[in-house]
């Protein structure tokens, strides 16, 4: 019953979507604009129908309706309710359904808000969103059908992938990622809409989607940080980033979207980079689809790759269609994409933005090359290879330190052209921040050139961005006699876009400090100890109090209780565990983390004797790791400042 309802909802939605895709160009070409409200209605109806399917799926999961193939695959009676609900995105079919649902929601919202705008841009953007929806509907009735029949109906299912039900972050990371990924469809649809309707020269597509792009970028940033945190809390190796293809898949569109946020300002202020911006938006969208392809097609082996099947060909075909259509559109609009401004001076903010775009794009191509190389090598030469971390680290470190430096230079420079005196006044003082961080890093024992440069440039950028606040606040104090607090609020309130950006910079700098410190100064030690014995690492001593085990409804747990010692005093306890899920052949590590301002004590239970008479414990000290999570929050906060509506609101 549920199964049929949901399945039919998707089928009907395909007809509705197809109608909308056809209705828009027909209305435009024949001048029957009366058709447009029906095309918009198709967008809302699609949202309703996909919602029916998604809610039906959640209902089937919660009621353990194992006659539905997806429920039989990921459901389990012993799984706690929360993890049952979130297993909606725990495997291939469900995650495609979730994608389609989020997309239909975005489409409905963006059309609802903009449907009264005259002109052809919004209808064409709506048709583009429907076109993307149609692709996902095809997947849902074809290779990723979650509503298959299971007969005979099994009494119980295996439950979700153990790695995905071991931590609460799995309830947060995937929805954030999907909201961010799918959100990039909105600027893409409006860019395509602008090209189809011949309205590119008005730049309206960019103004309309500014907040959507920023929101999607903020969600994607948060998702990447949450993914790192999950990896840190669940995988037990004490790291948060391994250049795994799935991590890269989330990072690639972030790089181009970040480039776009900057170059869009050059277009708004100076009327340049029109063609480039369209390419960035199309590229970002393609990278989100590529990322979904990489992670969902099973072409790379990892925890995210669910299956091997024909779904990969669908994705490749879709990517090819979007790429060719976009190229044709950009070529057809090239006359309208002329710059109206020009670069006046090398010493200007637009030059720094151009360099920022150059390095972000180079970064993207580097990561893309390393990610796709194994696929290409296997397809062409038939050899199985992987690209090691050294490649990514070696190639990206020069880019990263340059970007950190630019992040300090950009905010300090004015648009158009800076005089020599201005350059000196703006660029020299932040060197104090660079010098301070360099000294701190040297004293702490860093000797690697890139580590030192990263600390120095992050210090430079932090100084430069904080100084912008300081200069603005001081000016307000002198001009209006305001207190520091009022000056700060009014300064940011008066130019949210700009100061939101600086806040996001500060967040990125915090993340950079966290990564630089934890990869430079990380120490670890592993030993086998008996209950009562201790293990020590860089001033931290842990005593194994006891080994224990317990049964939980969906799993068995074996853990170690360790006491954090201060001399003979017990400061606290840590309990690293291993969770044994019946579905999995090996346990899921569950490290214990003790976070302090300056770093984490990270303890993982590596192995133990079956009778608990000893345990092999790995202790890692990870400096500044909490700064990464906190910095991610600051990035999102900065984006929120920029998203928040400007101007006075009389209602609300």
């Amino acid at each position, binding site marked *: 019953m549920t199964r049929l309802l949901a399945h039919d909802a998707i089928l009907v939605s395909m007809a509705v979507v197809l109608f909308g895709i056809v209705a828009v160009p027909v209305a435009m070409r024949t001048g029957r604009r009366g058709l447009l409200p029906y095309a918009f209605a198709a967008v809302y109806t699609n949202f309703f129908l996909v919602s029916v399917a998604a809610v039906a799926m959640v209902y089937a999961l919660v009621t353990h309706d194992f006659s539905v193939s997806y429920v039989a695959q990921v459901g389990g009676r012993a799984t706690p309710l929360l993890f049952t609900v979130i297993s909606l995105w725990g495997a291939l079919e469900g995650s495609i359904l979730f994608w389609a649902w989020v997309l239909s929601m975005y489409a409905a919202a963006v059309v609802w808000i903009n449907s009264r705008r005259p002109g052809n841009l919004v209808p064409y953007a709506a048709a583009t969103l429907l076109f993307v929806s149609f692709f996902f509907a095809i997947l849902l009735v074809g290779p990723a059908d979650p509503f298959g029949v299971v007969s005979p109906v099994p009494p119980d299912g295996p439950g979700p992938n153990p790695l995905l039900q071991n931590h609460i972050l799995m309830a947060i990371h995937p929805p954030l990622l999907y909201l961010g990924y799918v959100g990039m469809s909105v600027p893409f649809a409006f860019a395509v809409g602008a090209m189809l309707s011949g309205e590119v020269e008005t730049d309206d597509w960019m103004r309309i989607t500014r907040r959507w792009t920023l929101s999607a970028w903020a969600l994607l940033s948060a998702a990447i940080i949450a993914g790192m945190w999950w990896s840190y809390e669940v995988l037990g190796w004490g790291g948060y980033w391994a250049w795994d293809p799935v991590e890269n898949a989330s990072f690639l569109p972030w790089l181009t979207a970040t480039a776009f946020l900057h170059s869009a300002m050059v277009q708004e202020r100076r009327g340049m980079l029109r063609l480039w911006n369209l390419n960035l938006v199309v590229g970002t969208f393609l990278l989100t689809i590529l990322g979904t392809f990489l992670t969902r097609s099973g072409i790379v082996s990892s925890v995210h790759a669910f299956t091997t099947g024909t779904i990969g060909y669908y994705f490749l075909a879709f990517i090819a269609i979007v790429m060719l259509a976009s190229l044709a559109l950009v070529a057809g609009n090239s006359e309208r994409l002329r710059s109206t401004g020009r670069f006046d001076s090398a010493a200007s903010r637009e030059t720094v933005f151009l360099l920022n775009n150059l390095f972000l794009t180079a970064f993207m191509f580097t990561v893309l090359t390393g990610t796709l190389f194994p696929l290409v090598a296997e397809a062409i030469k038939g050899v199985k290879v*992987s*690209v090691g971390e050294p490649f990514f680290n070696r*190639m990206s470190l020069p880019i990263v330190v340059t970007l950190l430096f630019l992040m300090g230079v950009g905010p300090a420079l004015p648009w158009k052209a800076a005089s020599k005196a201005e350059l000196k006044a703006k660029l020299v003082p932040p060197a104090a921040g660079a010098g301070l961080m360099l000294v701190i890093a040297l004293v702490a024992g860093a000797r690697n050139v890139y580590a030192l440069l990263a600390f120095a440039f992050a210090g430079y950028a932090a100084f430069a961005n904080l100084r912008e606040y300081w200069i603005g606040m001081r000016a307000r104090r002198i001009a209006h006699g305001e207190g520091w607090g009022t000056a700060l609020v009014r300064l940011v309130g008066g130019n949210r876009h700009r100061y939101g950006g600086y806040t996001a910079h500060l967040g990125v700098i915090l993340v950079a400090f966290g990564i630089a410190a934890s990869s430079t100064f990380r120490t670890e030690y592993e030993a086998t100890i008996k209950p009562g014995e201790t293990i020590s690492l860089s001033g931290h001593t842990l005593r194994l109090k*006891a080994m224990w*085990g317990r049964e939980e409804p969906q799993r*068995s747990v074996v853990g170690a209780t360790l006491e954090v010692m201060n001399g003979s005093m017990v400061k606290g306890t840590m309990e690293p565990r291993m969770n044994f899920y019946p579905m*999995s052949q090996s346990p899921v590590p569950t490290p214990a983390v003790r976070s302090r301002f300056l770093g984490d004590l990270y303890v993982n239970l590596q192995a133990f004797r079956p009778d608990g008479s000893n345990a*092999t414990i790995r202790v890692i000290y990870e400096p500044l790791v909490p700064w990464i999570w906190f910095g991610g929050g600051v990035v999102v906060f900065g984006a929120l400042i920029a998203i928040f509506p400007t101007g006075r609101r009389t209602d609300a």
Partner: protein
Amino acid sequence: MTESKSKRRPWVIAGVVAVVAVFGWLLYGGLDKNVVFFLTPQELLAKGTAGYDVPVRLGGQVKPGTVKWDDKTLRLTFEVTDGKSDVAVQSSGAPPQMFRDGMGVVVEGRFGRDHVFNSTGLMVKHSNEYHPPKPGEKPQEMYKTLIKGSGS
């Protein structure tokens, strides 16, 4: 303005080409040194001296009866087999808790001239299908002193 633009154009194009070329060359050089080959024991041994001391991911099964784990020195040795050839592997650090004879593994590391593979990373390979645990393999049975005895 049009004239200065058309004069500048060839230089801009040359600059872009140069930057892209240098960047491509860097990428190629970086890849060339950091590609890790995925090999079976037979393929590794077939490489002869070319297989020594280069980064490799070695895939196969743990040969039954070869696992030795000293929890005092944290030294783990075993052999990886593909049914045709065997390679001795040495690694430091605890083996995965459910490390067993016959299970699929991928070890990352380098093959030494002493014909011992020095592992820097050990991954356990699972088939994606669900197999119910065999008798005696359930954690409640394997760790019964811990799970039943503690009573917590």
